[in-house]
């Protein structure tokens, strides 16, 4: 039987992976120090270097060590004799190739001399020569590897090379060693087969001759020779078989260690993937693991072929107590088990299920929405004659829980593993465009589980998608399975946030990646674990994580001032909304959404301090110059809100810290925060409106920090006839001069009597060049004004609409402001307005930064046909 040469086409090459270049050639390319060692090696006249040179490929291809160590009980090595004579013949051949030139004359002389010396020295003991050559080749190899290692070390500065762990180096080294060992074994088995074939041939010839001829001394001599050959063959076979078996045992032992290394690496990859799913930045590339798994499987398959080849020999000839009879089946079982183990673990989910929208949050699937998922087999060996088909099934073993929903996977549930897709690396199976459908037809309403209310909430119900692959390669048939991480299946977008909370909690805490009943008794998370995961949420969604101070504030919010990394938070406290109180996660996810949609750049650039308590905020701001401000997330807004807090002189010269009512996505949609900050006005009776926001904490001038984010004001063509006046939305807050400011430490709701003077502020739109301004007193209360601000309809632009007074073009800003103040005076003490503003949120936590029952915010705007909306919020403090 002809053994296949080791498959080496796929996968990168390793050091020691078969001779890529003749050893002798490589030796000659070594650096001088190492070349010197080679010269020393050949300084003694055991084997002349010219012989080494001329016969390099042949010398390297023979098994000298075997020839040097004939099996015991053998008088002399037939193999050594054979090799010796072949060597001499090859030298003669080489000799005859030289021409008649002068150079060749010397060469011819040297070669002749070498040959005669060899003949004289080793004629009687060719084993010695075999031994010498074996040793020389081994030494050369050692020098070569030292030299190459030195070259590599010089070529690769340690910093540039990717950090390899100790285990990764061990894997590489071991894989290379095992490959070499298997190839060596392979060669020895082949040698024996050749010997066997030679014998068979000569035996047949002899029989043919002997049949026809009468007995003669010549024939007798041949018979004798054949008998000797048979005996020799038998001895080497016994010896070799034992040796091959022992070495195969050894190799399997070493492969077991390799397999354990690989499983550890894979476990680490899975862990990385899990963390990457919930936002961590981890390397989840599989190419390296694929190389290793494929390499290990190749070696094992090769060893298996070898054992089968031995089995074939065993069929041809066997004898009593043949070790092959007993040991080979044992080896094969052990090997098959290893292969199965390797292949089973090599089937993985490369891309966990993910919907194309909303991005970055895998493992949350919505019924009826398409999602994709990818399985991959890390052993990239494919038998072309078999199609490898992957089947996909949801909840293969559904947990026995009342009301556990069942789903159908729509469109195709099977697919073929493709290797040759140039788009993708690896043996992958991509399921795209599949979706889920609830098996209960017409399942009741949004997210509700209707009558069949189960034990677990919809977002706590975990489902597994399992892939099954009928693997077949050569003689090996296996069923491989792998499962995704648990997915949460929702039916409505408003469940996205709480579904993601489940995914976070599971992947942060579940020790068993397949525990579908995790939420029947969810463990608590320590702050250390939670802080890391929360940080990932920010870094994944916004490219900027949370710093120490910010995390500290969150810890205090959750656990109070005694928070430690070991403080624990229950699942219910983390994510269960309990109206009117909303959960920590709902609050945080609202802020995440706000950042992602409206504040991405500011957050990324670090202008938003964000998570800072009021107390801390006061501490920070009071020490700074007046007009210093910071941006902080509201703790009372369910959908995420951001506020500005600044410091200004108080009544007795004490610095006072003020905050504006939080802006939510409603406001930020129409007016970006930098513009709000830029145009923010504080309007008070006795002085002109001013922007209290002067320096971003700790001391960056406002425009320096935010200048690059301001919306560009479009230059208006003066010559162009404009149909409308230019307008821009801004926000202002008004202040009652006669009313006392709210005391600093009044976090709670101020006395109702205070600050009730509702100011109807005007929406003021400043013209692009302040020529045409329209002052428009807002209607009672905030909401209509806001509506106008948000939806600048024609009404809002009409001069004089809603009883607005149109100012004459050309009026100075001062005039405008005076008019404004008049208006303000008129509208002061409007009791109706105060209530409108205080839009109570049923989900408010005990207010921390709840602004005092404020004054109605009115929107002022001016119209012009340069439509650059700018909205300024107005807020009164007292």
């Amino acid at each position, binding site marked *: 039987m002809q053994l296949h040469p080791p498959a080496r086409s796929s996968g990168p090459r390793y050091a020691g992976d078969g001779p890529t270049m003749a050893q002798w050639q490589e030796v000659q390319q070594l650096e001088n120090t190492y070349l010197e060692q080679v010269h020393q090696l050949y300084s003694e006249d055991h084997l002349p270097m010219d012989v080494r040179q001329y016969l390099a490929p042949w010398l390297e291809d023979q098994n000298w060590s075997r020839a040097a160590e004939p099996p015991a009980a053998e008088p002399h090595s037939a193999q050594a004799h054979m090799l010796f004579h072949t060597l001499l013949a090859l030298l003669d051949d080489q000799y005859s190739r030289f021409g008649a030139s002068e150079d060749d004359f010397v060469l011819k002389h040297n070669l002749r001399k070498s040959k005669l010396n060899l003949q004289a020295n080793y004629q009687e003991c060719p084993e010695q020569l075999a031994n010498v050559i074996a040793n020389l080749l081994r030494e050369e190899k050692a020098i070569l590897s030292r030299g190459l290692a030195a070259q590599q070390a010089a070529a690769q500065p340690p910093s540039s090379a990717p950090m390899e762990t100790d285990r990764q180096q061990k894997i590489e080294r071991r894989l290379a060693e095992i490959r070499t060992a298997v190839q060596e074994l392979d060669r020895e088995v082949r040698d024996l087969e050749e010997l066997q074939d030679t014998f068979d041939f000569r035996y047949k010839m002899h029989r043919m001759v002997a049949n026809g001829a009468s007995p003669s001394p010549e024939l007798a001599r041949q018979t004798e020779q054949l008998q000797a050959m048979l005996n020799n063959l038998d001895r080497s076979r016994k010896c070799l078989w*034992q*040796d091959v078996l*022992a*070495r195969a045992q050894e190799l399997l*032992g*070493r492969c077991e260690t390799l397999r*354990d290394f690989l499983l550890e690496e894979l476990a680490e990859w899975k862990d990385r993937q899990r963390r990457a799913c919930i936002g961590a930045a981890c390397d989840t590339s599989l190419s390296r693991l694929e190389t290793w798994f494929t390499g290990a499987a190749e070696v094992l398959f090769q060893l298996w072929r070898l054992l089968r080849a031995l089995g074939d020999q065993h069929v041809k000839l066997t004898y009593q107590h043949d070790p092959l009879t007993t040991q080979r089946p044992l080896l094969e079982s*052990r090997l098959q*088990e290893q292969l199965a183990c390797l292949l089973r673990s090599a089937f993985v989910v490369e891309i966990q299920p993910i919907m194309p929208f909303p991005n970055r949050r895998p493992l949350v699937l919505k019924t009826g929405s398409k999602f994709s998922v990818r399985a991959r087999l890390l052993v990239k060996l494919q038998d072309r004659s078999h199609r490898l088909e992957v089947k996909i099934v949801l909840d293969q073993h559904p947990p026995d829980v009342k009301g556990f929903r069942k789903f159908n996977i729509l469109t195709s549930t099977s697919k073929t593993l493709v290797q040759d897709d140039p788009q993708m690396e690896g043996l992958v199976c991509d399921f795209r465009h599949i979706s889920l459908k609830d098996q209960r037809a017409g399942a009741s309403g949004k997210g509700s589980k209707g009558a069949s209310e189960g034990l677990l909430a919809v977002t706590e119900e975990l489902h597994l998608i399992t892939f099954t692959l009928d693997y077949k390669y050569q003689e090996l048939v296996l069923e491989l399975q792998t499962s995704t991480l648990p997915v949460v299946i929702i039916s409505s977008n408003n469940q996205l946030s709480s579904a993601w909370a489940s995914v976070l909690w599971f992947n942060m805490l579940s020790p068993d990646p397949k525990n579908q009943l995790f939420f029947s008794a969810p463990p608590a998370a320590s702050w250390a674990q939670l802080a890391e995961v929360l940080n990932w949420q920010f870094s994944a969604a916004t490219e900027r994580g949370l710093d120490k101070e910010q995390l500290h504030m969150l810890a205090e919010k959750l656990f109070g001032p005694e928070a430690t990394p070991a403080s624990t938070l229950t699942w219910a406290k983390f994510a269960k909304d309990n109206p009117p109180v909303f959960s920590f996660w709902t609050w945080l996810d609202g802020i995440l959404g706000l950042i992602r949609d409206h504040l991405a750049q500011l957050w990324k650039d670090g202008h938003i301090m964000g998570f800072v308590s009021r107390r801390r905020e006061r501490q920070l701001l009071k020490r700074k110059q007046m007009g210093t401000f910071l941006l902080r997330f509201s703790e009372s807004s369910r959908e995420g809100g951001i506020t500005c807090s600044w410091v200004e002189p108080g009544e007795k010269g004490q610095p006072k810290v003020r905050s504006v009512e939080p802006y939510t996505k409603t406001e930020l949609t129409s007016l970006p925060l930098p513009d709000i900050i830029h145009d923010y006005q504080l309007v008070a009776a006795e002085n002109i409106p001013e922007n209290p926001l002067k320096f971003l904490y700790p001391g960056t001038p406002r425009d320096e920090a935010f200048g690059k984010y301001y919306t560009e004001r479009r230059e208006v063509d003066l010559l162009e006839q404009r149909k409308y006046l230019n307008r821009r939305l801004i926000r202002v807050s008004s202040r009652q001069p006669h009313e006392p400011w709210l005391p600093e430490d009044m976090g709670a709701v101020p006395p109702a009597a205070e600050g009730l003077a509702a100011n109807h502020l005007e929406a003021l739109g400043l013209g692009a060049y302040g020529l045409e301004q329209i002052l428009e007193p807002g209607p009672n209360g905030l909401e209509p004004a806001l509506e106008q601000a948000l939806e600048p309809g024609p009404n809002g632009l009409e001069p004089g609409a809603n009883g607005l007074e149109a100012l004459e073009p050309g009026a100075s800003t001062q005039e405008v402001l005076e008019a404004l103040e008049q208006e303000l005076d008129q509208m002061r003490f409007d009791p109706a307005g105060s209530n409108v503003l205080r839009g109570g949120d049923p989900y408010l936590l005990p207010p921390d930064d709840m602004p005092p029952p404020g004054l109605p915010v009115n929107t002022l705007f001016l119209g012009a046909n340069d439509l650059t909306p700018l909205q300024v919020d107005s807020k009164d403090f007292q």
Partner: protein
Amino acid sequence: MGQGIGCPEKSRKSEPALNQSMKKAEDGEESREEAVERGDKQLRALHGVADLNNGAIGLYNMGLSCCLNSLLQVFLMNTHFTVILRRIRVPTVPIEQKKSVPYQMLLLLEQMQCSKRRAVYPQELVSCLTWHNLKLFVQYDAAQLFLSLWNLIKSQITDEQLADRLTTLYTIWVQEYLVCQKCSFETRRDSNMLSLPLPMFNSCSQRLKTLEDSLRCFFQPEQLTDNNMCLCEQCERKTPCLQGMRLTCLPHTLTLHLKRFYYKKSSWTQKISYSLPFPQSLDFNQILTQEQCHPDAKEKADWQYELFGVVAHSGLASFGHYCAYIRSLTEGKWYCFNDSSVCQVSWDDVKCTYGNSHTHWSETAYLLVYMRKNPQ
């Protein structure tokens, strides 16, 4: 209780004549004699020199002899054992030479040390063992074969002093006790063992997690009640009692035997392949409680051990392969011996023999040989 030591047979041969081939080794021996007087340190240095060329050489499989080969390696790689082996008196009569197990082992050792090959054939030793009814082509249990082999060696060492040294090198001494639960009368008995047969499950049939746990479980006293009650001398009737043992003395070379094979009635012998990690160094003072040590226990401070060898089994209970992992005492490197194939390995490879409940054919440690850290 564990296996007792076979009673050493008094050998008839006492001729002190030296075999010619032994001359060299004996020369070294004399200097060693002096060294004993001069101190242990030098002794160690010296027999280190004697066995310096004790490289790792394989043994060809003579027919299902992987178990024997593994054990031979564990013996012959142990320089403390070979020191004793080298001092044996050589039988003069050729036929007796052929039958002497220690002598044949010594010859094999010489053959291995002089060999330029990777492996040698233990032919003579095997035929000698066959003589003593240890046959080839039989699947042996390594723990049993170890006892048989050791007893054969011991019984054939004629020099009593030397035989005692061998005993000291391997024997574990314990005091067994039986306390009557009625009258608190305690019966004691000194006993010795060649290996500690360690359980894989505790008394409640729960998996033991580590070797240390298994050792603790082994020394845990056991309540004997109902059918197991024993006769109390004082009460003069069968009473429930507490049976246990106290460790008196640990030998230099300590053999532990994991009971991975279990026999169910009317069923096949089964192998337990789940993982039981064992440490590279073992401190008995950390494992045993005061009550589990004999009050007169000597050299307790020296109950510090380091792993020297692992005899691992792969395959099923009825059908498998043995190999040995041994840390060379001269080089400090680990080798794996698979019959004729020997290779240097790492601690990771040895760890691989902890076992794995998912595989049935992998290598699992069966015998563990620990060696005292600072030999006295």
